[in-house]
């Protein structure tokens, strides 16, 4: 089982995510530069947080033109697992792998704080280790995490049960309290909260472990199939 974490110029959670995959979940993990053009051989691809290319135009906008993106899109189209966290979520939206967009927080300020989330769909490769409606606490750290999609898109993704995590106490103005969601096929997840920051009790919590355990189970199950 292998995971790749894509490192864009300006990514700053790439090491953190790779650490969580490698040291916590025990998945063999490589950091792959965004200037590479292939992701062959990886079961899971992580798109990490940070400020790719400075995020100077819109978060994630410039990263979505990186050389690695065609390979990432191909990986996703072939059913490969993709998890985008924070800036990774923004990149996946900009690249069209996830619906909608992330706008400035309602407060217009960056927020770094623990947030309570409800796991509203446990039937995904990213959340099957959680209990339905379980409340978990994960840190958020973003300025642009206010999820927006037009009414049609929103209705569709709700009907399709694509929402995986919802804020209990919406910190940023996201529509329908959306903190994380998948694509229609269910193999690509984007979420603003940082599960990789909640995998060690020493650092204040382990509620993020479920995401990594879910992914690991999914890959093992796929391999057995």
């Amino acid at each position, binding site marked *: 089982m292998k995971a790749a974490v894509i490192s864009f110029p300006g990514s700053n959670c790439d090491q953190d995510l790779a650490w969580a995959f490698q040291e916590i979940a025990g998945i063999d993990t490589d950091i792959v530069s965004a200037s590479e053009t292939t992701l062959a051989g990886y079961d899971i691809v992580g798109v990490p947080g940070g400020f790719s290319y400075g995020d100077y*135009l*819109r978060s994630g*906008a*410039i990263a979505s*033109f990186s050389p690695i993106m065609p390979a990432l899109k191909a990986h996703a189209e072939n059913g490969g697992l993709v998890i985008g966290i924070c800036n990774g979520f923004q990149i996946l*939206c*900009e690249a069209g792998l996830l*619906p*909608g*967009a992330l*706008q*400035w*927080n*309602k*407060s*217009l300020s960056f927020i770094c704080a623990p947030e309570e989330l409800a796991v509203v769909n446990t039937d995904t490769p990213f959340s099957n280790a959680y209990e339905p409606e379980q409340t978990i606490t994960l840190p958020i750290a973003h300025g642009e995490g*206010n999820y*927006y*999609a*037009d*009414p049609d898109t929103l209705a569709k993704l709700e009907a399709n049960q694509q929402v995986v995590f919802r804020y209990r106490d919406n910190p940023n*103005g996201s529509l329908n309290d959306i903190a994380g969601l998948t694509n229609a096929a269910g193999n690509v997840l984007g979420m603003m909260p940082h599960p990789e920051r909640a995998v060690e009790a020493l650092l204040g919590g382990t509620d993020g472990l479920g995401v990594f355990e879910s992914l690991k189970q999914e890959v093992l199950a796929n391999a057995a199939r």
Partner: protein
Amino acid sequence: MFKASIYVNYKPSVLDPKAEAIKTALKRMDYDNVESVLFGKYFELVLAAKDEQAASAQVDHICDALLANVNMETYRFELTEISEVKA
């Protein structure tokens, strides 16, 4: 050589928190006569192209792909032919 003046704005249906903040600030400054605020991005590109049609197609693609997020933004642009570019 062409100069493209490009305007990118939120779609009217999208609530723009920055425009809202400006409205609030204007209220606080006692500008009660300001009826509406739109806050967008403005770009100027200078580009070489063989004719206006080619320039227009290119700028359109640049806007659609990069400068605007068409999920929530719209864009428009104007082209002017310019003779020379200042370095």
